[in-house]
């Protein structure tokens, strides 16, 4: 297992290198630069700034300089947030995205698996229809609709929870963003769980278990849940990476200073280093999470390990 993990980690290095080089070329290929605006800079000033940030050097040289900085863990200064470095911005944004993402994923797993199992157990009954109806709605209504509607209803009209982030008290401000973020995940996980649970419940060994006189609850808990979780698990890898690195829409609507917000603004402002820093961070996270999923697969399903 250890050898497998190490090999996988080594295998990730070329992937990451490719991501860095491609991302570097792409952000620099985008028209416009970090210091362009309607209020154009006087040419002398523009030159001074480019010299200061070494943007006047040829691109390959800039790439090499960036890579060597990267090896020392230096992601460079942000061009838009001129008082901050990229590492500082990631360090300030990621914990928030992580908190909200983890809470949302936790909520989604508990509710999603529960609802999916319930629906599978009562296949083609009213309960099943209601659960799947909710799931379908959850998947089809986009977050950018749900979020403002929730804010309007719960915060503006009812004054139950704060509408925004900055300056709002403690835990209350987490509730709306977490729920909004979790809703589509709940829906997706519920559907996956239902389908896979129905498939598992129709297998021979489950029938055998019934024949032995076991109750439905026990059968689901002991025999069915584990194999039924495999599709959910493979969905979780990329989903967790996406959710943890910050949902752009949620962060914009609620004004949460997370990673997603920095990423979008970085791209719009041509903040080369900020965009690159977040891409690299994101890529590393995805590689790691996929690896974790693969290892968990081995734990849950022994057949994977033997291959």
């Amino acid at each position, binding site marked *: 297992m250890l050898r497998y993990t190490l090999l996988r980690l080594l295998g990730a290095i070329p992937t990451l290198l490719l991501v860095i080089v491609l991302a570097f070329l792409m952000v620099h290929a*985008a*028209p*416009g*630069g970090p210091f*362009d*605006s*309607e*209020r*154009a*800079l*006087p040419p*002398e*000033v523009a030159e*001074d700034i480019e010299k*200061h940030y070494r943007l006047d050097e040829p691109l390959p040289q800039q790439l090499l300089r960036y890579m060597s900085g990267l090896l020392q863990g230096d992601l460079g200064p942000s061009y*838009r*947030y*001129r*008082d*901050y470095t990229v590492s500082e*911005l990631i360090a300030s*944004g990621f914990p928030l995205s992580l*908190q909200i993402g*983890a*809470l949302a994923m*936790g909520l989604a*797993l508990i509710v999603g698996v529960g609802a999916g199992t319930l629906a599978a157990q009562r296949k083609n009954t009213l309960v099943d229809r209601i659960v799947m109806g909710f799931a379908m709605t959850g998947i089809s209504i986009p977050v950018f609709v749900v979020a403002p509607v929730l*804010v309007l209803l719960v*915060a*503006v009209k009812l*004054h139950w929870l*704060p*509408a*925004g*982030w*900055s*300056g*709002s008290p*403690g*835990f209350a401000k*987490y509730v709306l963003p977490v729920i909004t973020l979790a809703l589509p995940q709940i829906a997706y996980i519920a559907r996956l769980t239902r389908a896979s649970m129905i498939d598992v419940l129709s297998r021979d060994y489950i029938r055998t278990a019934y024949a032995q006189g076991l109750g439905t609850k026990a059968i689901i808990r*002991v*025999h069915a*849940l*584990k194999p039924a979780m495999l599709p959910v698990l493979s969905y979780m890898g990329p989903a967790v990476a996406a959710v943890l690195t910050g949902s752009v829409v949620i962060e*914009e*609507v*609620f*004004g*949460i*200073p*997370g990673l997603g*917000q*920095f990423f979008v*603004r970085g791209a*719009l402002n*041509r903040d080369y280093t900020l965009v690159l820093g977040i891409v690299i961070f994101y890529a590393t996270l995805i590689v790691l999470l996929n690896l974790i999923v693969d290892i968990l697969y081995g*734990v*849950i399903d*022994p057949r994977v390990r033997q291959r």
Partner: protein
Amino acid sequence: MLTAMKVIRIIGFAALLGLVVILANCGGDEPDTQGSVLNIGLITEPESLDAHKARSIQAADVLRDIGEGLLSYSPTGELVPGAAASWQVSEDGLRYTFKIRENARWSNGDAVTASHFAFGFERLVNPETAAFYAGFLADIKNVEAPDEQTLLISLERPTPYLLSLLTHPATFPMHPGSLAEHGDDFARPGKLLSNGAYVLDDWVPGSVITLRRNEQYWNNSATAIDEVRHHLLTQEMTQLARYRAGEIDITGSVPPDSFQQVKEELGEQLHVAPYLGVYYYGFNLTKPPFKDNPRLRQALSMAIDRDLLVQKVTGRGELPAYSWVPPGVENYQPTLLSYAPMTQQERNAVARQLYKEAGYSDENPLKFELRYNTSDSQRRVAVAVQAMWKDVLGAEATLINEEFQVLIANVRKRELTQVFRSSWIGDYNDAHTFLSVLQQDSPANQPAYASKEFDSLMSLAADQVDLDRRRLYLEEAERLLLADHAVIPIYFYVSKHLVSPRIDGWGDNVLDYHYSQHLSLKAAE
């Protein structure tokens, strides 16, 4: 061998542990509130709070709370003494003597001296600083600080808007000791020294900038509010939601889609006021068909029904623009486009005539591209103008929306671009801030307007001491610019804020400057 239950228990336990840890951390960033708090919505995050690296209007808004220039503005936009208690101007308008207040203090208790201003000016123009506003002081010949309280500024030529410039954060004093100690980090929370009413307490990027009362400020007794939070909310809709929820007291703008509703529901809380900004369409004057073709440019300009546009399309109280310099600028009466007195029908008739004279007709229509930055409100204006051009002239404009940075890059290259959307916001209350944009050597001259006559009028104006004569030259320069139809001014911006009824001391003004130190909170009901 692990059983299913064990695996699920382990995962569940780990998840639970994670949740507990996260929840424990959640409450940690609760602000400890003491005294009165003002919450302001800022639509753009400052790029820096180093006054020389800052560039956006919103950075200047925050900096005006933190620092103070030689002069300042009253809530209604009149120049008032700031760090300087008084000043004198020599008769030729070339020498200014400022007396710094003896009780002016930095937030660490050090005295604010004349040399701190001189030091700031030097840093501003030093190429190594690479300051956006370095050109602000181009007309200054020499700055001297003969003693701690006296600052002498001598000018190359009379610059009547100098006093207005001296309210701008780029001209605030700098503390040499602080810069020497902290280097480039001097503007960060906990380090930045303030000589204004508030001191920088904290800045969470993407979230909030918190300021607290500067006890050392010379006029601290007049400051009413103890803490100011500038919330960084780039979405107008988010600002509106938070305003309605009572979480911010002042919004930076009002979303176009909700404007009518807000006006009806929140009536008196909505402040709409003229603003020193012009929204325009520019021509690429270096390429056909618009190069050397003022008649065609005039035809396109005349065919736009600006009154209809501001009423039906923009609809937030904007003023139709028949000049380049907005109304409300000091010492100036904007020159109007020659056709301004006509009705739109008359304009359309003349426009058609000019269009024909330029060699176009229904069989041979003018085809060109109009580029604008991707946004709903830009698109609506572009669609309306496109229809007007089609209806009145038969000209066929293709609409192309580009992301903001792409548009700017294209406009600057002057290759692809034919007609483009742009705007200019005044930096100080003087016609010069608008007219100088179209001087040939101005970096902001996007249409590449190049008129020797215009440039020489601007230069003549710059040499005048007498404000009335200077004004005549500037007005003549604008007349020329408008007769050349180098740009199509479309409308003048207005400032749009929602201001909570619990705020006292708010004043509308053309510069849209609102110092937190002038505001107070009404006693809770």
